[in-house]
């Protein structure tokens, strides 16, 4: 009988924190600036410069630690990790090895077999590196240090996951917690959340772990799932062929759907960690911890419960809306303005979801403001625009947060509620379509639909179909 294998997976997740400034200097962390415009002597590693810790980084790290049930290390320090690479101008990265800020935590995930806890070994604070651009023509590399010194937390899990599904459930859980905290937007595609996968296989029932490999360059949930499948098979094939799995770092190529070795254990780095002399220890008092605890936001479970009590919207809608912090924020803010939770939920669940899917976007990418969505809902409610126009306006608003009132005004999309004008048009449509009128009188109810359509066309879509219908019936009777 063929051997049965079990996959053992642990994750190292890097999350870029949503601070305004870098971890050790007052440079901006804003995206999209021209190369090297957000740099200073500290984040380019100039001799004699000194780092000063951004307090917000510590607060975010503690908040994430508390939300993932970790013990907070109340006396904690930074360490130097030494390595040479041009994206790292100091020749060391300031990180934490000996006393990471959070330890011994865990989060619960839902699996097919029920609830399971994934342990968190530790969370530590560190700085990001710069970006290298390779110039193939001139055989040189160009370095942009705008990302150098951007604060990160690294969340190291225990090897508690057994499948790609569990890995994705764990990542989604982490992402949601961190988004709810406002500590990061956690976008895999843009690199504000990055996952390295440590994977080994062993025969079912074996006690010892197999040799593990570490996989990097995974920038979507789909890539992670494919990489896990691919690496599991590669390791099983090796074992079945009587060969050995080598402990190495591998890079996943998602277009080719295969991985290749980057570094093996033999040329593994020796990072020569030592305590960072330029930064003094951090002492986290009970009072400080309590303050942060008090500021913790309403997380998803509590939010779902509150929505159920407060709003009359379906459970399924609640699940989807609270599944993204940004979506939940839009829902609450819009509802607060227009007081129509059902309609807000409808716009989010139907049109918003349709456009997100069509444009391959995440809920976090939604750019329209609650104010504008509320305006649109209220205009439709007052029958100032009909539902077809509302959808058209929504698409424009979805694309660039256009003010629906202004747009409707400019494009002249307002429904004509002037009964006189409408009556004239309806009369003309009746006169122009004797066949349909006859059909209607012969009992073909459907014929009225055609006449409504013709009227709407003549009114350039700016009529209330209900009113047209009513008027037609009145004039035809």
């Amino acid at each position, binding site marked *: 009988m063929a051997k049965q294998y079990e996959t053992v997976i642990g994750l190292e997740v890097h999350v870029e924190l949503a601070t305004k400034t870098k971890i050790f200097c007052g440079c901006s962390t804003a995206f999209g600036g021209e190369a090297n415009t957000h740099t200073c002597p500290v984040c380019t590693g100039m001799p004699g410069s000194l780092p000063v810790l951004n307090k917000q980084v510590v607060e975010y790290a503690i908040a994430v630690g508390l939300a993932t049930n970790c013990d907070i290390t109340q006396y904690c320090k930074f360490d130097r990790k030494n390595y040479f690479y041009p994206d790292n101008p100091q020749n060391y990265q300031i990180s934490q090895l000996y006393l990471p800020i959070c330890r011994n935590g865990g989060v619960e995930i839902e699996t097919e077999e029920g609830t399971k806890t994934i342990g968190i070994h530790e969370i530590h604070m560190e700085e990001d590196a710069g970006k290298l651009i390779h110039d193939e023509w001139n055989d040189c*590399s160009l370095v942009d240090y705008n990302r150098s010194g951007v604060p990160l937390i690294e969340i190291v899990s225990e090897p508690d996951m057994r499948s790609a599904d569990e890995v994705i459930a764990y990542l989604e859980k982490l992402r949601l917690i961190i988004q709810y905290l406002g500590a990061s937007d956690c976008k895999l595609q843009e690199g504000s959340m990055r996952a390295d996968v440590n994977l080994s296989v062993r025969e079912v029932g074996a006690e010892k772990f197999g040799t593990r490999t570490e996989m990097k360059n995974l920038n979507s949930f789909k890539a992670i799932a494919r990489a896990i499948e691919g690496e599991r098979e590669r390791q099983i094939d090796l074992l079945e062929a009587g060969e050995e799995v080598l402990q190495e770092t591998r890079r996943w190529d998602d277009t080719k759907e295969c991985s290749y070795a980057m570094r093996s254990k033999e040329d593994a780095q020796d990072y020569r960690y030592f305590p960072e002399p330029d930064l003094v220890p951090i002492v986290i008092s009970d009072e400080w911890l309590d303050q942060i605890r008090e500021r913790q936001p309403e997380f998803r479970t509590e939010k779902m419960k509150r929505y159920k009590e407060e709003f009359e919207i379906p459970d399924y809608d609640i699940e989807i809306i609270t599944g993204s912090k940004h979506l939940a924020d839009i829902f609450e803010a819009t509802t607060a303005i227009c007081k129509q939770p059902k309609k807000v939920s409808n716009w989010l669940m139907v049109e918003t979801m349709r456009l997100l899917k069509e444009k391959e976007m995440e809920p976090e990418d939604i750019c329209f403001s609650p104010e504008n969505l509320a305006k649109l809902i209220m205009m439709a409610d007052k029958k100032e625009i009909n539902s077809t126009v509302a959808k058209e306006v929504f698409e424009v608003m979805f694309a660039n947060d256009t003010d629906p009132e202004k747009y409707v005004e400019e494009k002249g999309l307002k429904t004509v509620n002037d009964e006189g004008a409408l009556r004239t048009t309806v009369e003309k449509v009746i006169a122009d379509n004797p066949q349909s009128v006859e059909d209607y009188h012969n009992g073909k109810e459907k014929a009225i639909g055609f006449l409504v359509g013709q009227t709407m066309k003549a009114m350039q879509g700016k009529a209330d179909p209900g009113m047209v219908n009513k008027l037609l019936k009145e004039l035809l009777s």
Partner: protein
Amino acid sequence: MANVISDETIEYVGILAKLELSDAEKEEAKSDMGRMLDYIDKLNELDTTGVEPMSHVFPVQNVFREDVVTNGDDSENMLKNAPAERDNMYEVPKTVE
């Protein structure tokens, strides 16, 4: 000299430091490192059982900055430190991992 640095060690340290050493330089480095380790052995003669390693000499803790942007674009000055510059970036020998 009590500490003898092997050829393998000097080779490995060279790789980590990204240094290419000639045979003569390797011999010199081996002897220098051996003497450094001898000096460290001297420190090891002291019994430090139960003594917490100290990383800072000053009794200072919790030095923070508020999360406020204080630095603007100074890339023109910053890039004066670059060995070579192109498109507002530092140009370095090609490095691919």
